[in-house]
């Protein structure tokens, strides 16, 4: 390993610098060792070391250096191990960093893909939309190729999962951006008593006060004074290194810092995020060494890095003159200042640069830049007309290794757009500024079109006071702020050049001609232009490119930028690591009170809505199908026990309880005798079956009923809503959680139950479909004699905390009868043998009761029930399909159909299997299927297309398959 390179570009200490010179940091970039300081970012340390190619451009793989140095320099994306696409102008330098540039083939210096720069003529805008569709067979090849060449960074699938807990926070006023206006706003709102959070995405606060000094120390002193003001306010929380990544409804803002996301709820938001400096467009404006003036100033004042030795300044505003003075103070040889404006700078800065001997060329432009070894070596300066046309008769060539541009700004208004602000284009200032802000949203500073320092401070104070007053704090009325008179942005910072390579979008390598071509192809609306050319769709999301794109399109269409408009600025404002967004996979899971019993018995789980239920109980050495069959056999011949506690359970009280049930279910319940139960079907307003259950009448004014497992929450909710409209005299309680339930079923169930209850279980005292309240195993229970599985059986409901006790008692008493717990799979088979449907499996979102064979449960001779009117209409139309039972002709049972396999007749779909299983008691596969009505008559043969296209013959048979007379449920004993 070679010794770290010296850093020839590091300046002597600069007041206010962010680096800590006492702590050196060794790191590597592209295999070469370098040294920086704590507080550095890789871009700064590398630039100080003389590295100029920090990355390669996306499409043409041209060398790129620093451009904006404003946290969106996405041509300098780096990877460190598993961490990819780090922004080299943001990521704090850490000891041991081993960095590589992304998007290169063989390293950033010798990138083999740089050949693409020579092939540019064959890669016009939108080429991939047109070129790679034919021949179709080659598309997979091209897709793989493009995925390989276009990805940024290499994903390491062995990267550890990072847990990034979210934090929640609250504030009266959130101020986004801690530059002069943001700090002034926070001080004003804080002094009024508001709880203020002030965030800034940079490592330190201060914004332009820190880096835009104009060769003076006054702004730094202003910064220190504001910092002191903030520090004196305990109700103001200042958070540097924190990005406001997105604004969501009601001031819900995602704050992202190095380690986590904080979801902050504010009552008001002040956006003081400043503006993005915009590049000028001329030939080779992407050469390393060409950078925004603000980038050079940040290099100097934050990191004490000399950006270049000899600089030409291209400008159209006062900021460029300040930059020239800052560079001069840093020991850079500066000149000339090329001012795009024929009239030049009107402020006193004009005189100041003259005094220090910097030449100013008014009404000139930079026609092109020339590079050598991947860095700027010369610029060509010409007079121009301010409209893009240079007079190339007498070009002036100036040797330089740096060109700084300050020709315009675009507001950092993403949060304002997200908050619903209307932005309008101000022709005088040549900037989009807020035209209408939603309530509680304020803008201050450059984003508000205010550029001079005093005005920024006044504008921030105004916004802070307005926010405080809106929230009811006692604050003085704000003074109005005098508008800036000079435009900070040039209307046309674009110089034509026949040879192109004049970049507008540095993320996506888009040149001026790409926009002309896109518009010529008809994509001349800003949203279409964006999608076709991909302008603004790169990682920096148009921060340095959208404004010039809008100006180009405006000129093409002969409109103003305001008429062209802007594209939508969606969250997030900057790239956010996916680890910050990843949650814990919070999907609530419910377990019945008997969960541990099931687990102890070897339950294999299945999901039913939010619940975990035993699918079956595994017996070592046996396959699932064997276990299920044995569980079913136990129920048919002996006794089984299943946990049905996941059923929805609802208590209904009151004088109108019966009338209420008659309105929400299809059946009649007012006449249901106390101590009896009745099957109940629920429809929605379109007459579709949505739920079923059993209604038990416990007392004259007290019903207790069940719903399906998955329907429980929704049914309860909708019942509440109906009564919110009907105002019947009822009380309704969701007892799903409070009650556990289990079904003891099989010919020996009575014998088991009898041992642990004094309740008279004789057929006479407790008939089929009866319900009794009694103590079972010493536990107060509701016992329903129902027969979902088609055997003598008791569904026992007890308070949830006593479920374990009852289960144990039943299992203990049942041991003598070889009791067997059975799971959902066996229950499905057993009920299928009885022809009982499962809502949602044997019905779908369009099934009417008659189609599902439930016509017997629909009582049309009631004044009203939900869905009644629709059933009436549907019945007059005749059946569309019919649910019928079928069995396979024994010979074809080798290939069994599955649920959802289609019934095929004459090559057309004539139905669909909803349930199917092998039934031991029938001795064949049996199932339920929706069939065309003319296929549904008993004995009709039909074909099911099973796996692999095998046609399996089946035959319609009468339901139920098992015990048609229902004697098994009523046996005495």
């Amino acid at each position, binding site marked *: 390993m070679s010794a770290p390179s010296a850093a020839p570009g590091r300046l002597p200490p600069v007041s206010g610098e962010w680096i800590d010179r006492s702590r050196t940091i060794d790191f590597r970039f592209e295999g070469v060792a370098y040294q920086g300081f704590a507080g550095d970012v890789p871009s700064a340390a590398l630039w100080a070391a003389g590295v100029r190619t920090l990355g390669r451009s996306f499409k043409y793989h041209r060398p790129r250096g620093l451009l904006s140095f404003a946290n969106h320099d996405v041509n300098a994306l780096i990877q460190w191990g598993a961490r990819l696409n780090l922004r080299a102008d943001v990521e704090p330098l850490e000891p041991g960093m081993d960095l590589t540039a992304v998007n290169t083939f063989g390293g950033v210096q010798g990138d083999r893909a740089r050949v693409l720069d020579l092939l540019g003529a064959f890669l016009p805008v939108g080429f991939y939309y047109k070129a790679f569709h034919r021949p179709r067979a080659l598309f997979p090849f091209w897709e793989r190729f493009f995925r390989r060449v276009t990805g940024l960074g290499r994903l390491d699938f062995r990267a550890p999962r990072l847990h990034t807990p979210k934090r929640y926070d609250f504030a009266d006023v959130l101020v986004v951006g801690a530059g002069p206006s943001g700090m002034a706003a926070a001080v004003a709102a804080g002094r009024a008593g508001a709880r203020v959070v002030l965030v800034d995405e940079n490592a330190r606060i201060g914004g332009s006060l820190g880096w835009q000094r104009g060769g003076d120390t006054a702004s730094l002193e202003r910064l220190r004074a504001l910092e002191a003001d903030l520090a004196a306010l305990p109700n103001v929380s200042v958070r540097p290194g924190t990005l406001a990544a997105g604004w969501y409804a009601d001031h819900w803002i995602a704050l992202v810092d190095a380690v986590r996301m904080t979801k902050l709820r504010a009552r008001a938001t002040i956006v003081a995020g400043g503006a993005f400096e915009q590049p000028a467009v001329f030939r080779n404006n992407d050469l390393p060494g060409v950078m925004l003036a603000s980038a050079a100033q940040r290099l100097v004042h934050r990191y004490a890095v000399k950006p270049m030795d000899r600089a030409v300044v291209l400008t159209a505003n006062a900021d460029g003159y300040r930059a020239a003075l800052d560079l001069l103070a840093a020991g850079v040889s500066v000149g000339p200042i090329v001012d795009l404006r024929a009239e030049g700078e009107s402020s006193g800065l004009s005189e100041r640069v003259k005094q220090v001997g910097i030449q100013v060329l008014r009404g000139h432009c930079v026609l092109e830049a020339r590079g050598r070894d991947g860095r700027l070596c010369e610029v060509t300066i010409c007079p121009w007309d301010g409209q893009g046309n240079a007079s190339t008769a007498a070009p002036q060539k100036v040797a330089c290794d740096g060109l700084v541009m300050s020709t315009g700004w675009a507001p950092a208004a993403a949060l304002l757009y997200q908050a619903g602000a209307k932005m309008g284009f101000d022709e005088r200032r040549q900037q989009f500024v807020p035209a209408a802000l939603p309530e509680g949203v304020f803008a201050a500073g450059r984003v508000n079109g205010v550029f001079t320092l005093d005005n920024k401070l006044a504008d921030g104070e105004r916004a802070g006071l307005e926010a405080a007053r809106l929230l009811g704090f006692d604050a003085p009325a704000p003074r109005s702020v005098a508008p800036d008179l000079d435009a900070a942005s040039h209307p046309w910072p674009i110089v034509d050049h026949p040879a192109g390579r004049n970049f507008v979008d540095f993320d996506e390598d888009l040149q001026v001609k790409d926009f002309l071509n896109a518009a010529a192809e008809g994509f001349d609306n800003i949203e279409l232009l964006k999608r076709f050319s991909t302008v603004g769709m790169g990682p920096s999301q148009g921060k340095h490119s959208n404004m010039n794109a809008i100006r180009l399109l405006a000129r093409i269409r002969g409109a103003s930028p305001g008429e062209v408009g802007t594209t939508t600025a969606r969250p997030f404002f900057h790239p956010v690591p996916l680890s910050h967004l990843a949650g814990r996979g919070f999907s609530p899971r419910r377990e019945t009170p008997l969960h541990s019993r099931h687990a102890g018995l070897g339950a294999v789980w299945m999901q039913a809505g939010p619940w975990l239920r035993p699918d079956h109980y595994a017996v070592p050495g046996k396959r699932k199908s064997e276990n299920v069959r044995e569980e079913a056999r136990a129920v048919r011949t002996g006794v089984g026990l299943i946990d049905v506690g996941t059923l929805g359970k609802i208590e209904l009280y009151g004088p109108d309880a019966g009338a209420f049930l008659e309105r929400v279910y299809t059946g009649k319940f007012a006449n249901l005798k106390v101590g009896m139960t009745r099957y109940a079907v629920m429809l929605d*307003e379109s007459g579709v079956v949505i739920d079923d259950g059993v209604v038990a009448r416990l007392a004259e004014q007290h019903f207790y009923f069940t719903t399906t497992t998955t329907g429980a929450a929704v049914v309860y909710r909708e019942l509440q809503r109906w009564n919110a409209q009907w105002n019947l005299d009822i009380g309704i309680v969701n007892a799903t959680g409070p009650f556990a339930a289990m079904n003891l079923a099989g010919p020996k169930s009575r014998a088991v139950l009898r041992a642990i209850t004094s309740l008279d279980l004789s057929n006479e005292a407790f008939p089929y479909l009866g319900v009794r309240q009694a103590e079972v195993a010493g536990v107060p229970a509701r016992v329903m004699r129902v027969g979902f599985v088609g055997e003598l059986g008791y569904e026992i409901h007890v308070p949830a905390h006593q479920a374990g006790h009852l289960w144990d008692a039943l299992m203990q008493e049942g041991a003598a009868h070889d009791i067997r717990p059975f799971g959902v799979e066996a229950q499905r088979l057993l009920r299928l043998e009885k022809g009982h449907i499962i809502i949602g499996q044997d019905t779908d979102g369009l099934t009417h009761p008659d189609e599902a064979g439930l016509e017997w449960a629909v009582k049309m001779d009631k004044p009203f029930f939900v869905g009644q009117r629709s059933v009436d209409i549907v019945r007059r139309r005749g059946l569309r399909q019919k649910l019928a039972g079928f069995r396979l002709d024994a010979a074809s049972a080798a290939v069994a159909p599955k649920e959802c396999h289609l019934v095929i007749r004459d090559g057309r779909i004539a139905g669909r299997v909803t349930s199917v299983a092998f039934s031991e008691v029938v001795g064949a596969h049996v199932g339920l299927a929706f069939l065309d009505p003319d296929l549904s008559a008993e004995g009709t043969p039909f074909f099911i297309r099973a796996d692999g296209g095998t046609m399996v013959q089946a035959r319609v048979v009468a339901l139920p398959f098992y015990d048609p007379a229902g004697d098994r449920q009523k046996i005495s004993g």
Partner: protein
Amino acid sequence: MKILTCPVNGPRPVSEFVYGGEVRPMPDPANTSDFDWADYVFNRSGIPGVKVEWWYHLASGTWFLAERDTVADRVLRTWLPGEEHP
């Protein structure tokens, strides 16, 4: 995330609520044409404007009504069914 004001529980994040659709009076089933009934059952108005909607506060099981400007996505007022429209 939006804040919605439950008339019983006060302002809560919208994730605690279930949207119940626009309030649409049911026509008298006995005295309405098949066509009008089908219109009531199946058609919903997507026309932007101020609408009265059902909302349900899931945590407490409270149905209430909200007047919402669907253009600005702003809730103008909320109240319990049966109460006077404030």
